């Protein structure tokens, strides 16, 4: 199995889908000759040509809207946002148009909007957001956030094949840092199914995206102290895998909800409500959240570091909870 970065895995997933299905095409800013701001689409213009790898002006609303229209007419567009922060400029076409078409009049909208999100590169307030919850709050969309290279490939393929609009968040910090064995053959990872990233018995850490790695790092450190963390990687946030969450909570009886996104209105709130209503009796301690604080993402490196959850913060919360 070849070793591949997270970024290469996404590229290969898209590449294979383009080979497999001529109705798949890419559109976005600087994705052709330039190869994409992060080079996800490098080499694709040469392979698939200008008809299928389309450079657009800076017009997010038209990029998304044109993708919706093309999807309705039988294509499978994959639109790139140069940074997921800029998806705001195409917001109406996503939440009012793409998300509600099937409900309003029946047709499928098979399209993907994908791009880099997340902090840790000193990008400041406009190039660092974890804005997945804007879309998790929109019925009709699917929201996917991979953590591993294997999943990134399998999930992007599932997203492209899905008949609903999928918003696909790629943590930019993982692009080149994660290197794994990734099968070269065709496989998919189903949407809506979580994965146990590490088995454990004392505390369930429910998380997704880059924070899966943070949770694993904390689990490794705490294992030496005799505290066993189970790490659940949600993979899809909408619809999310309620069963996997509840099973892990019922097994460990204590739970930490971890995300890089800010606290209020974050995924942890939703998970806490699910757990409190369905697994209340199974809890041996308070539901604990580890998240970023409710502020924009600061630029200055020491502030950004303080802002972001990390393994130490998770471990600290876990120690307290274990002793509860």
């Amino acid at each position: 199995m070849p070793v591949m970065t997270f970024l290469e895995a996404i590229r290969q997933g898209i590449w294979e889908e383009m080979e497999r299905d001529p109705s798949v095409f890419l559109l976005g800013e600087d994705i052709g000759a330039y190869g994409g701001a992060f080079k996800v689409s490098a080499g694709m213009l040469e392979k698939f040509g200008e008809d299928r790898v389309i450079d657009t002006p800076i017009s997010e609303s038209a990029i998304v809207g044109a993708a919706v229209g093309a999807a309705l007419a039988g294509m499978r567009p994959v639109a790139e946002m140069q940074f997921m922060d800029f998806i705001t400029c195409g917001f109406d076409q996503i939440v009012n148009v793409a998300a509600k078409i099937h409900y309003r009049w029946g047709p499928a909208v098979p399209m993907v909007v994908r791009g880099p999100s997340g902090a840790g590169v000193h990008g400041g307030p406009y190039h660092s957001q974890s804005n997945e919850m804007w879309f998790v709050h929109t019925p009709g969309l699917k929201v996917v956030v991979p953590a591993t290279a294997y999943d990134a490939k399998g999930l992007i393929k599932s997203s492209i094949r899905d008949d609903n609009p999928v918003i696909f968040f790629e943590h930019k910090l993982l692009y080149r840092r994660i290197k794994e064995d990734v099968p070269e053959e065709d496989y998919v990872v189903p949407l809506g199914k979580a994965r146990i990233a590490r088995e454990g018995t004392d505390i369930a850490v429910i998380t997704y995206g880059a924070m899966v790695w943070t949770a694993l790092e904390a689990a490794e450190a705490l294992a030496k102290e005799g505290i066993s963390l189970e790490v659940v990687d949600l993979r899809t946030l909408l619809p999310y895998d309620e069963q996997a969450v509840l099973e892990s909570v019922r097994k460990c009886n204590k739970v930490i909800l971890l995300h890089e996104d800010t606290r209020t209105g974050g995924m942890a709130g939703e998970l806490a409500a699910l757990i409190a209503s369905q697994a209340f009796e199974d809890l041996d301690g308070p539901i604990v959240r580890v998240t970023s604080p409710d502020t924009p993402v600061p630029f200055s490196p020491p502030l950004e570091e303080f802002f972001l959850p990390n393994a130490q913060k998770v471990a600290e919360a876990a120690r307290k909870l274990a002793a509860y």
Partner: protein
Amino acid sequence: MEHSDTATSAAHSTEAQGNGASTLTQVDRARRTDPAVLKDLLEKMLLVRRFEEKSAELYTLGKIGGFCHLYIGQEAVGVGAISTLSPDDYILCSYREHGHALVRGLDPGEIMAELCGKKSGVSKGKGGSMHLFDKTKGFMGGHGIVGGQIPLATGFAFASKYLKQHAVTLCFFGEAAVNIGSFHESLNLAALWKLPVVYICENNRFGMGTPVERASSLYDLSGKACAYNMARAYVDGMDVLAMRELVMEAVERARGDNAPMLIEARTYRFMGHSMSDPVHGHYRTKAEVEEQKRHDPIKMFTSTLETLGVINHDDVAELDKKVREIVEDAVAFSERSEEPDPMEIDTDVYTS
């Protein structure tokens, strides 16, 4: 200079276009400009150039992180345009705004400290390179979402008209920003409501790696104003005096008659899109960049002033020494500034 392909549509366009298509040379313009002004313009351009060169150096050393977009090559646009403003006027820019901020008189040390994420930065290190602000100087940012500043500028112009403040708003953006909806919505509002705003499109030929011809169906970008019945012009953005004269006219009209205008300044970016991009990459050749550097706005202006005897070689060396010292002082200020205190994390989110 080439002529516009949609010459006649807008109400005021004929007059405004005179500048873009003018046969006046920089020497002609310099002759009718106060020598003190000329020297000041040169000094400001040099300051911006040296500041940006230093920023590039600090970025390479890892002292500036994140994304950092330099203004090298485009100095004549910001310097010429901003030289026409009064202290009460407003300026809004994109993320390529270090130069505009310096010219407007923001403290170079506080700008550098912001780039380096220090507590003493203009935005306390919370924003970085793309988020420079100084309300006291009417410098309203620094905006990282392409086109995001254009509606905002329109709002400033609305308020100054409403409040009868007689302030003018200058709004700078790149040529790739004319393709986003906010540009069109704003120009229509400004023309409809007759707002005192001058939109300055800095056409440096590329939006990242995409040449203007591959992003806009209309190459003559000032022509976009025709759809909104707004005055428009284009100008050689490498010529600081042509820039200054045109913007001066536009600002006067905006102030006097509340007439908005769109100006396309034709310029060129000598560096990569940001510090994380190569200088030319695959989207343009090294030869093209070198060719464009022959029109370096600073070299051209220096030679004009030398030709006219406004300055000599030694004066230029002296000016350069002066601005280098300002830049060194700015770096020193930033270096001795503290990192922000983590306890600052949740301040500034709301006003109290």
